[in-house]
């Protein structure tokens, strides 16, 4: 039978998707077959896919085994590998690259699809964000009514895409970066923002009323029900990812309190936010691969902490570094900054124009050596993060400092670093 012939191929090279590619060539219906009989959840968007996939995986995991794909292996081949590796798992949570959502949805008949956000990323591969949204919209219209789409009400392109789905749960997942949807997707008039909600200046379209919102650290549903929403991950975007993950868990039938507890326990995703001691430095790894991601990253930096900026431009990063000029690097003024990565020369020129003095080093060790001892935030894009993790692989993990609230503050810690 199929599984016997293909299993050796699917075990080819841990971390590689070559086995998946070969297997799909031999059996193009493989993905459909592997998904049959399982509850599948798809997670996609420009930023937050990996984190939200992990959070959903943990939340669904309270009820039994869950298959999931490794970060980066989010196109067809990687998905096939994940499903094949964990045959016993009755549920699967799949991180899916934005360009692959319609085809993967058509072939896996998901129970839930989470649509997080859409903004510019890897423009050499995805030239127009709007076209991704259009294909999503066409794909959503094909879904069965059994599928719930959990979609970000604060992103106009996501709303444009999701509204054609038979069943949508709108989530107030918020929006930090607003540069990629200046025009109304329905009528092309300019969009405006009123009291934090987007609306079109030319037609009746506006932010839909969300079913699920974050009210001061509590997730509240308009259908009744509220749950404590805490996360050990830093920054606004991760609170939003946690809210979406909870929404997905609820749509899948998981108990909200147990899901929220599982979500709150996640402190690091693929090395992100992890702190490691390297000589005299404690390096915290942060992923940032496009302007929207950097916009969120600035909200996570601790005052006074030096920063390493590590940027590559391999295929997985996007081959062009023009996006660096849409990042407000001016906000690094006043910090000590070191630059590394294959495209450090591009970053150096950007930082000079931004008025940020910096040193340039050929590798992470050199970058750290240029900075005073103590904590350092290392902001890396996709493959540069891989390189940073490799450089820090032998270094001990430093646990998060425990924050002791001063006398008089409530005992319930705020969402953020535990």
């Amino acid at each position, binding site marked *: 039978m199929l599984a016997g012939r293909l299993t050796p191929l699917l075990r080819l090279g841990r971390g590689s998707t070559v086995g998946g590619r070969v297997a799909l060539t031999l059996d193009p219906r493989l993905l459909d077959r592997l998904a049959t009989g399982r509850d599948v959840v798809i997670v996609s968007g420009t930023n937050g896919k990996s984190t939200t996939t992990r959070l959903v995986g943990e939340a669904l995991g309270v009820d039994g085994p869950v298959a999931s794909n490794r970060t980066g292996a989010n196109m067809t081949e990687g998905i096939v590998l994940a499903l094949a590796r964990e045959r016993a798992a009755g549920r699967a949570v799949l991180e899916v690259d934005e360009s692959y959502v319609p085809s993967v949805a058509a072939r896996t008949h998901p129970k839930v699809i989470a649509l997080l956000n859409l903004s*510019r990323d890897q*423009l*050499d591969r995805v*030239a*127009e*964000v*709007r076209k991704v949204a259009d294909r999503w919209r066409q794909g959503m219209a094909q879904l069965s009514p059994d599928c719930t789409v959990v979609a970000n009400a604060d992103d106009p392109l996501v709303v444009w895409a999701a509204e054609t789905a038979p069943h949508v749960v709108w989530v107030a997942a918020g929006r930090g970066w607003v*540069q*990629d949807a*200046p*025009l109304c997707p329905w009528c*092309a008039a*300019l969009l405006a923002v009123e009291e934090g909600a987007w609306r079109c200046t030319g037609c009746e379209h506006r932010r839909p009323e969300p079913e699920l919102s974050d009210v001061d650290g509590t997730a509240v549903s308009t259908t009744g029900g509220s749950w404590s929403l805490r996360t050990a991950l830093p920054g606004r975007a991760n609170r939003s990812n946690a809210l979406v993950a909870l929404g997905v868990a609820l749509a899948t039938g998981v108990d909200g309190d147990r899901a929220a507890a599982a979500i709150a326990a996640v402190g690091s995703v693929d090395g992100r936010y992890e702190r490691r001691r390297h000589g005299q430095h404690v390096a915290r790894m942060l992923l940032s691969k496009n302007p929207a991601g950097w916009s969120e990253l600035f909200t996570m930096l601790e005052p006074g902490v030096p920063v390493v900026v590590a940027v590559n431009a391999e295929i997985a990063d996007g*081959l*062009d570094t*023009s*996006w*660096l*000029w*849409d990042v407000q690097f001016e906000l690094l003024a006043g910090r000590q900054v070191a630059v590394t990565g294959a495209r450090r*020369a*591009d970053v*150096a*020129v*950007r930082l*000079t*124009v*931004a008025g940020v003095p910096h040193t340039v080093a050929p590798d992470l060790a050199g970058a750290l050596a240029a900075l005073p001892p103590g904590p350092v935030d290392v902001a890396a894009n996709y493959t540069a993060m891989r390189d940073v993790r490799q450089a820090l692989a032998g270094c001990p993990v430093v646990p998060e400092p425990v924050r002791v609230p001063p006398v008089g503050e409530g005992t319930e810690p705020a969402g953020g670093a535990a």
Partner: protein
Amino acid sequence: MSDLSIVLVFPGLLGTYGDRGNALVLRHRATARGLDVELVEVEPGQPVPAAADVYVIGGGEDEAQGAACELLARDGGLPRAVGRGAPVLAVCAGFQLLGESFPVSGDPHRAGLGLVDVRTERVAQKRAVGELLLEPTLPGLPPLTGYENHAGRTVLGAEATPLGRVVAGIGNGVLDGAVHDVEGGDLTDGVLAGSVVGTYLHGPVLARNPALADLLLERATGGPLPPLDDAEVEQLRRERLAAVRAQTPRP
């Protein structure tokens, strides 16, 4: 009253590829020479000043390009500025919309501002994406390096001069479906038309090509300008030029 006013046109609509960096580079290089610089970012709803010293307009998505062109036509500030000979750097969609016509979704011949003798067509074959290297038409300029990412192909009118000859990449391209010759041949990029410099070079183009930035500044201020320490940019240029020479031809 500043020494130099820079207008960045509709960065919210035409800023998808980092081209706002061109305005930042101009400001940086002018400030480094002791000039007092005003950078005005004009968004839809605000008038485009007609009397500024230099204008920067960048690339964006289809619908945004169409919306921007309509707004600019109605406003009239940019056409007046071009009419009085103000230096303009126009990249990609910004470059296209200055011409006679350009393609958007559903309309292959949307009217442009008609300020420059070019027209742009969409072709069926794949987008032009990759490192772009030019031998400049203007004497004294070093090679122009950047990254292109566009679907349109631009035809220059008989009187229009290209910005440069393509050494690697596609640039304005050709329309008849012929194979794009990576080694150059007859391919050109961009346009030099009066005070307008148009190009498909992102990067941003002025970040990678300080000589072009200084050319625009000298035209805007009456020049000449003292040189700056460009060691960092020269390092970047060396790397980019080496990368282009090492790359395999595009399929």
